[in-house]
């Protein structure tokens, strides 16, 4: 068990974004998280990642309690994360972006550079290594986002809606890429809206609604789960079906 969240609660003002959420992720697996908009998926990532501190509850990673630690510390411990909307360092080149993330693993600038090139090759961005980020397409920025997260050599990777905004062929390429990551002893948690992607990538799926987990199961069971259908499509639809 690589990650465990226990009874997490997080509110903003009057809104409870995460309402007693408990999740467990097994090492080496891919967990998908789905749910309607506002169900707390990104907030959950922010809690795991250290961007937010939960009001109560705990997050344990590889046996260590990481609740409330700073994001950079959590990155050091081995959790990587991508942003929903790519947030690259705009005034640098693609390579330099990835280099920054390798600083916690490499002992010198030279080694950082080497590691960064390797990662760029992995995500097939090596031809754009010396290009300024400003001149790079959205799809490439998403790859860069992934590359940068990989730079910290994480054992757990949080992917936040990587597919958003990509064309169908780009989505295919992205799925291939993520699949190839699995062979590298990486545990993945994937948040997505596109059902096909989730179904094809994940070992297990958790469904969130209003900050609570309403279902967690293997993909085949999830699609037939009444609660899930109701959450996504509403009461009347599920009543009819």
């Amino acid at each position, binding site marked *: 068990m690589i990650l465990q969240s226990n009874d997490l609660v997080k509110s903003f003002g009057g809104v409870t974004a995460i309402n007693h959420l408990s999740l467990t992720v097994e090492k080496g697996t891919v967990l998908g998280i789905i749910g309607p908009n506002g169900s707390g998926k990104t907030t959950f990532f922010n809690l795991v990642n250290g961007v937010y501190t939960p009001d109560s509850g705990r997050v344990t990673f590889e046996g260590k309690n990481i609740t409330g630690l700073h994001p950079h510390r959590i990155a050091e411990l081995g959790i990587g994360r991508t*942003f929903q909307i790519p947030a690259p360092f705009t005034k640098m080149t693609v390579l330099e972006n990835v280099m920054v993330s390798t600083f916690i693993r490499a002992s010198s600038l030279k080694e950082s550079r080497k590691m960064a090139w390797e990662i760029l090759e992995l995500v097939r961005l090596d031809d754009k290594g*010396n290009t300024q980020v400003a001149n790079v397409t959205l799809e490439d920025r998403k790859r860069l986002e992934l590359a940068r997260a990989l730079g910290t050599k994480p054992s757990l990777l949080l992917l936040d809606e990587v597919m958003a905004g990509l064309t169908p062929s780009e989505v295919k390429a992205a799925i291939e890429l993520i699949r190839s990551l699995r062979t590298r002893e990486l545990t993945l948690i994937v948040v997505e809206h596109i059902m096909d992607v989730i179904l094809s990538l994940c070992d297990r799926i958790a469904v969130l609604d209003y900050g609570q987990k309403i279902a967690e199961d293997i993909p085949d069971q999830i699609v037939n789960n009444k609660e899930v259908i109701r959450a996504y499509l509403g009461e009347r639809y599920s009543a009819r079906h």
Partner: protein
Amino acid sequence: MELQASKAQAVPVPSVWRFTPLGLLLVICLILPWLASPLWIRIATEVLMWAGLAQSWNIIGGYTGYLCFGHGAFFGLGSYVTGLMMVKLGWPFGIGLLFSGILASLLAVIIGYPTLRLRGAYFAIATWAFGEMVRQIATILDVTGGAFGLQLPSFLNLRYFYYVMLAVTGLTYLTTHFLLERARFGYKLLAIREHEEAAEMVGVDTVSIKMKAFALSAFFPGVLGGIYAYWVTYIHPDSVLGAQLTDFMVVMAFLGGIGSLWGPFLGAVVVQLLQRILWLFWGEGTFYLVIIGVAICAVVLFIPNGLIGLMESRFLSPREAVSQLRKTFKW
């Protein structure tokens, strides 16, 4: 900003000729006091001081993206501390300078701890308030001579001050070059500037790095302030702690090019030159402020990367310039 694509490749064998302009500059700087008249030595000393100050500001403002509008306070602190240490405690000049620098860094840490948490605009206002507060305090306290300032004995000659200023400013640039342009520290600062949250997420300890940058950026003004105090022998809250000090630092860095190594130097030279030329033609006055104001606005609008940026990208053709102007005013 100035991390060009070429840096990403393996460092090529430096051709000796690349260092020629730098070498020439160095030679000129070194022999200037023996060739120039006292007036020019004074002007050069002042330019050097500003070059150092602008670069110090650049460290926290340009590279890290945290615009400190109270940076002059570190300069003033250095002036007063060095002056007082030497007058009241009889410390030697060098020790006084070092102490000033360290004290300034300490102050930066104290102030930085709460303020670096604030976002862009708030940080600017908070540091601006801090700067003004320091000035007010100096005006009130008796030990600093209050509103009457501090008179210091003069003891060294012009040339000596020139070399000391050169040495310290040179140190500023060397430090910036080695710690910021060629090292991980610099990359981290840029990452913080570009997207602090993402930097945090890839393992950059933003809190600690920002503090280090701020402390570093305060050290040099502290020392330069100390040199200045003895160079002009009379310091006063308005002269060493006034907002115009920070104003100039900011202008020079922006005009030359924030986030670059030579930008602040270029900015300092241009602004000082401009000031003197205007003084020559219009008499000692304040008109140069108008020009400076226009210059900053122009820089922000048209060349946000400063003069250095201008030299690196292609120039706008007249047609492009006109269409840009049209776009600005079109409704």
